């Protein structure tokens, strides 16, 4: 240490949790909130005013919050949740709070909202919010005109078949036995449901059930709607969703948060009416000044229980053990600083002061950091994929893979949307993708729809479905007929889906400016490059199985083809089109 280093730098404190260790506030439901109300007070008051208006009988509204990454958008939503719970406890009015992280896509938004709405209603500060809803007004069920929702809510109220009822409400696929236990009918052969439309009906019914108590729907990280960089369909779908919610219900306070860098996407929305309904109010979260910074640092330090005794000995210095002078350079350029930048600087400084500084692990390389982050995301993704099914995962995550493989997405087309979920253009032509969820009658109905609307002359078709679900007798016949007409079937492995979901979560986090290696922000480009260079084998196989349809220049009549480009010798049996199934289960060529 140089002689010019201030005395403060020589301070050492016993090893303890770093009070600045959580710079990014991950979810409003997560843990304790160390809060400085003066920070971002103006947008918070805007929200509270809207809520008070609603409680006084006014119609709900929509508020858009913009701000740089780290300006405190998610933190503000956390502050709001605490305030709502406090209002409830103190008898100042009840409300329901729902947090939606927007890592969905244009084609899955309603399902995503259904899942978030049901999940958050089934939890709460003191038991579930749903239980509070029943307790506050037992006649709410009278508002529900959706038979399925009504039956499931009755089950939840009475504590019957809780897990099956909760799963149904979230939109997860259930077996026939569970459906029968809940009293829900099984799809009939002539009924063909769109899962997105079903989700919208369920959301509508749940919101009607909660009316007229205000429901605060917080849509965080809107920029995560881009399935790949620059995709705008998600914003248009979101504008439609907000508009529909706003028109259909009077008791909704819709709060949307977007990083300023993506605000241009909202400016570019083509439907003026939807845009107006979405942007009813707007506010910007600002960086903090030195005074607010001092409050923030002091609050964090005061909340550190193991530091209390030591700080008492330095009661004249609110910054102790940190040094205000060392943080001032953060404010040099504009006189302001983002809260997260300040917290990260404090975290680093605090770590330097801890006595066992020498025992800190060496800094990670970017490669190692991304590998670890991916592994963490993968664990969560395996659970998510198992719950949400193949259709939603592929809708949300496959565009990233295909766009980064050089394919060009094709725009919306009414005729095509009757049988396919996505369509892509490659060097070898156009390819439509149909994602099949579930089995039994639902699968048969979907295959019927594909069979009646798809013509092989317009574009190639690949059907992606879960290999573990066997089609029924009629379904198998339809599938065979479609294959004879030129369609191909691909069975993505669960691990490929989980990997795609994990990559999607990682890129979304980086896009929102929330991924840090030490004090270095890791951007989306770095994550994309790393992920493409380290694609798991299962994803590579899936990509290959999809791309080969656009690369092929002549029809393959032979039963077995050997691909030299693939990392291992593999066999593809065109007759059965089991493209993505690992070859170890097949005969070696």
């Amino acid at each position, binding site marked *: 240490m140089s002689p010019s280093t201030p005395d403060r730098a020589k301070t050492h404190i016993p090893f303890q949790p770093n009070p600045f260790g959580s710079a990014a506030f991950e979810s409003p439901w997560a843990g304790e909130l160390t809060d400085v109300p003066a920070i971002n007070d*103006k947008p918070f008051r805007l929200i509270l005013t809207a809520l008070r208006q609603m*409680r*006084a*009988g006014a119609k709900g509204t929509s508020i858009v919050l*913009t701000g*740089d*990454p780290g300006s405190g958008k998610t933190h503000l939503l956390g502050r709001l949740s605490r305030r709502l719970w406090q209002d409830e406890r103190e*008898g*100042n*009015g*009840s409300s329901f709070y729902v947090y939606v992280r927007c890592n969905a896509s244009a084609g899955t938004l309603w399902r995503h909202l259904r899942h978030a709405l049901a999940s958050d209603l089934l939890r709460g500060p003191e038991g579930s919010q749903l239980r509070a809803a029943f307790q*506050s*007004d037992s006649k709410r069920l009278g508002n529900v005109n959706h038979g399925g929702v009504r039956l499931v809510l009755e089950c939840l109220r009475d504590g019957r078949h809780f897990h099956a009822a909760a799963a149904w409400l979230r939109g997860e696929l259930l077996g026939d036995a569970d459906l029968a236990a809940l009293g829900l009918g099984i799809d009939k052969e002539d009924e063909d449901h769109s899962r997105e439309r079903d989700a919208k009906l369920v959301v509508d019914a749940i919101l009607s059930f909660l009316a*007229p*108590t*205000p429901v605060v729907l917080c849509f965080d990280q809107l920029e995560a709607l881009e399935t790949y*960089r*620059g995709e705008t369909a998600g914003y248009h779908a979101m504008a439609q969703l907000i508009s529909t919610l706003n028109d259909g219900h009077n008791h909704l306070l819709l709060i949307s948060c977007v990083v*300023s*860098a993506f*605000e*241009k996407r909202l*400016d*570019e929305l083509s439907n003026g009416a939807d845009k107006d309904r979405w*942007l009813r*109010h*707007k*506010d*910007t979260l*600002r*960086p903090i000044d030195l005074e607010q910074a001092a409050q923030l640092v002091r609050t964090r330090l005061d909340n550190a229980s193991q530091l209390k005794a030591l700080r008492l000995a330095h009661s004249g210095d609110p910054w102790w053990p940190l040094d205000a002078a060392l943080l001032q350079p953060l404010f040099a350029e*504009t*006189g*302001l600083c983002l809260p997260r930048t300040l917290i990260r600087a404090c975290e680093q400084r605090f770590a330097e002061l801890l006595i066992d500084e020498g025992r800190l692990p060496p800094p990670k390389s970017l490669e190692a950091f991304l590998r670890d982050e991916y592994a963490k995301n993968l664990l969560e993704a395996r659970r998510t994929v198992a719950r949400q099914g193949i259709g939603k995962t592929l809708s949300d995550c496959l565009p990233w893979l295909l766009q980064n493989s050089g394919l060009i997405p094709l725009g919306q087309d009414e005729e095509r949307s009757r049988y396919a979920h996505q369509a892509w253009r490659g060097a070898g032509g156009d390819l439509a993708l149909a994602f099949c969820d579930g089995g039994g009658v639902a699968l048969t109905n979907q295959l019927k729809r594909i069979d009646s609307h798809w013509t092989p002359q317009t574009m190639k078709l690949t059907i992606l479905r879960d290999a573990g679900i066997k089609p029924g007798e009629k379904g198998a016949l339809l599938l065979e007929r479609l294959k004879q007409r030129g369609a191909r079937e691909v069975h993505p492995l669960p691990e490929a889906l989980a990997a795609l979901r994990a990559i999607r979560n990682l890129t979304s986090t980086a*896009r929102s*400016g929330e991924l840090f290696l030490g004090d270095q*922000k890791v*951007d*989306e*480009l770095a994550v994309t490059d790393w992920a493409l260079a380290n694609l798991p084998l299962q994803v590579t196989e899936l990509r290959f199985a999809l791309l080969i349809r656009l690369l092929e220049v002549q029809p393959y009549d032979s039963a077995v083809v050997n691909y030299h480009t693939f990392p291992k010798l593999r066999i593809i049996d065109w007759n059965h089109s089991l493209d993505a199934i690992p070859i170890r289960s097949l005969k070696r060529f």
Partner: protein
Amino acid sequence: MDARYPNGKSDKARAEWFNLFFQTAMSSRKVRALPVYPPEMRDSILKAIAEAPGPVPVKDLGTLSELGRKVPGTHVQGLLADDLNSGKVFQWGDSNKPAFWSRNPKIEARQRILKIAAERVLTPGKLSAEAVGGKPKLNLNVVRAVQKELIGSGLLREVPAAPRSTTERLINADHPEILEPEIARLTEALFAKYGVIRSPERIRALLAADATQPTHEPALARADDEEIIRDAAEKIFAAMNRVAFAPGTTVTFYRLRQQGELADIPKPIFDRAALLLQKERRALLSIHDHAAALSPEEREGFVTDGLGKYYVSIYAR
């Protein structure tokens, strides 16, 4: 019982509603509702303000021939309340004799103070008095507040008192033609105190060496450029306040560029003007932290400092 409306009001909710109603009705300062005026009247008033060469007294606005009738001053102020809050028009004069104009008095005050302080080194009191006195006359409180902001942002620097005075003075530190002689005088006085004499050439060399220190700000080539950039900055600032959803909310450069008065400003000038607003601490720019991943066409729509930083939107501080 749930406290909510309109169905099933609870006692508590009902009591809250009555309280709110009662407080409004019984408030000692009664707020009279503004009579309903056709929207064309407000438009005529706004047009007159926009076309006026200076602040228009509220009395004159109420007697505009286009209105077809006399409108009391308080009603004129009521009609302009939203435009005043959103920064479309600005109040001049004082509360007894209000006047309205499309130009922001703070910007006028800022320009006057910086111009005077670039020509003469004056005490804060004399500087603000001179700034107030120009045409149109400014409110002294506004001038003082702006002067304080300029000192805080470092655009005005305090220099020691003149001989035979004890009051520190203010100088516009961005202008070498006034800064150089002042520093030379101070250095000379300091050296003389210790019996050291330095020739004017040595002092100039010292200042020149200081001036050659690298700076991250793109140097302005000519005084003309500075004038053009400042003018562009004013236009950006005014447009930003006009199109912002609410005061202080972000406006994307994409949207600003669609404004007629900004569409023709060359990009380098536009960028430097936006950066000037941040430097002068009048506005903040939102950074796009992965602009490198975007296409050159997309980056073209952002403001850049030329050193790798790209900004996507702007908002008033």
